[in-house]
């Protein structure tokens, strides 16, 4: 039972991570990408939690605290400077792919 | 030791992509290539440290099953050095942009000039072209 759940969780997280990477690749704007990065960080938190549960240790907790306190800074930074220079968010390369 | 295939292949992938970017002319691109290679060499240390184990934090008297702490210490050093590199190269990219509105590394002008002279057979700078003294012209 626990093995199955572990596997199911791991598979779901992997799928999520890959889909997020697809969004990061597609964009089309940098804001899409940082949003996706935030989600990815959340997936990482879940993955860390899963690992902690499976191996039953608390050594990853400092990482969780750090991410929860400071992980938001990357997207805030991007948002700050994009706000100032709107050309930075211009939809890019793969705009057709992103919409299509 | 039995090598870990997935990690070994990942090392290769990170180096491959890193090299691909490194060979571009843009400073930021080269930097990103170096970061990929840095991740690659860090994972190489994981390969070198053998089988994964628990974190090397002594909890009881039993230290078996711990992963090798020495490569970890070395990787930590490497990570910090890489951070310094990132900051510095970015500062250079910025400076390059300030100067030339571009972070592209251009070819060395002196070398380009020598290549031009070589291709044009331009020996104007040689002391041994043109009519010189026949044999011994004393002043």
């Amino acid at each position, binding site marked *: 039972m626990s093995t199955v759940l572990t596997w199911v969780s791991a598979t779901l997280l992997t799928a999520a991570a890959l889909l*997020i990477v697809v*969004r990061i690749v597609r964009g089309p704007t940098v804001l899409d990408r940082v*949003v996706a990065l935030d989600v990815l960080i959340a997936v990482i938190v879940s993955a860390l939690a899963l690992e902690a549960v499976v191996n039953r240790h608390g050594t990853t907790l400092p990482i*969780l*605290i750090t991410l929860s306190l400071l*992980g938001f800074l990357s997207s805030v930074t991007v948002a700050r400077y994009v706000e100032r220079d709107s050309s930075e*968010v211009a939809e890019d390369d793969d705009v057709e792919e992103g919409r299509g | 030791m039995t090598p870990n295939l997935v990690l070994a292949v990942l090392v290769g992938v990170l180096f491959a992509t890193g090299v691909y970017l490194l060979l571009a002319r843009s400073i930021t691109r080269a930097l990103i290539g170096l970061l990929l290679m840095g991740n690659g060499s860090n994972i190489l240390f994981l390969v070198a440290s053998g089988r994964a184990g628990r974190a090397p934090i002594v909890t009881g008297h039993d230290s078996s099953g711990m992963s090798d702490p020495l490569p970890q210490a070395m990787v930590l050093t490497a990570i910090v050095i890489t951070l310094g590199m990132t900051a510095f190269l970015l500062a250079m990219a910025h400076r390059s942009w300030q100067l030339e509105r571009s972070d592209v590394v251009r070819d060395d002008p002196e070398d380009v000039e020598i290549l031009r002279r070589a291709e044009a057979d331009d020996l104007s700078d040689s002391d041994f072209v043109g009519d010189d003294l026949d044999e011994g012209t004393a002043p």
Partner: protein
Amino acid sequence: MTAVLDSASLLCLTASALLSLAAAVGLLRFPDLLSRMHAGTKPQVLGVLLALLGVGLRLRSGLDVGMLLLVGLFQCLTLPVAAHMVGRAVYRTDLVRSCDLAVDDLSVERTGEDGRAVDGDQLGPDDHVSEDVHRSDG
């Protein structure tokens, strides 16, 4: 008891993983950035909290539970800020076109009050050039 707690812990994690996947799917499927933000970031809050709960149920030591509480708290404090800053940037850089919105109070208010509506002209001409991603190399 331990077995029950352990199973509950794993169930929490599975649920969290499922929410993560939902977030990822929404991120991919939703048509515009602000919608994607809803889909992507919000279920995550619950997902992360569930994951932390799962860990707490499994580890059950004072040290770890204290830390987990803090993690949850910090997540709740910081995630909205990120969402807000990004959302504001999205709105201000006019990535959400008013026509996509059913109701747009802010646009009315802003143009009405000080006429500072951000218009599309701020995008440089070169930014609409679309390139095939496969020709991504010089």
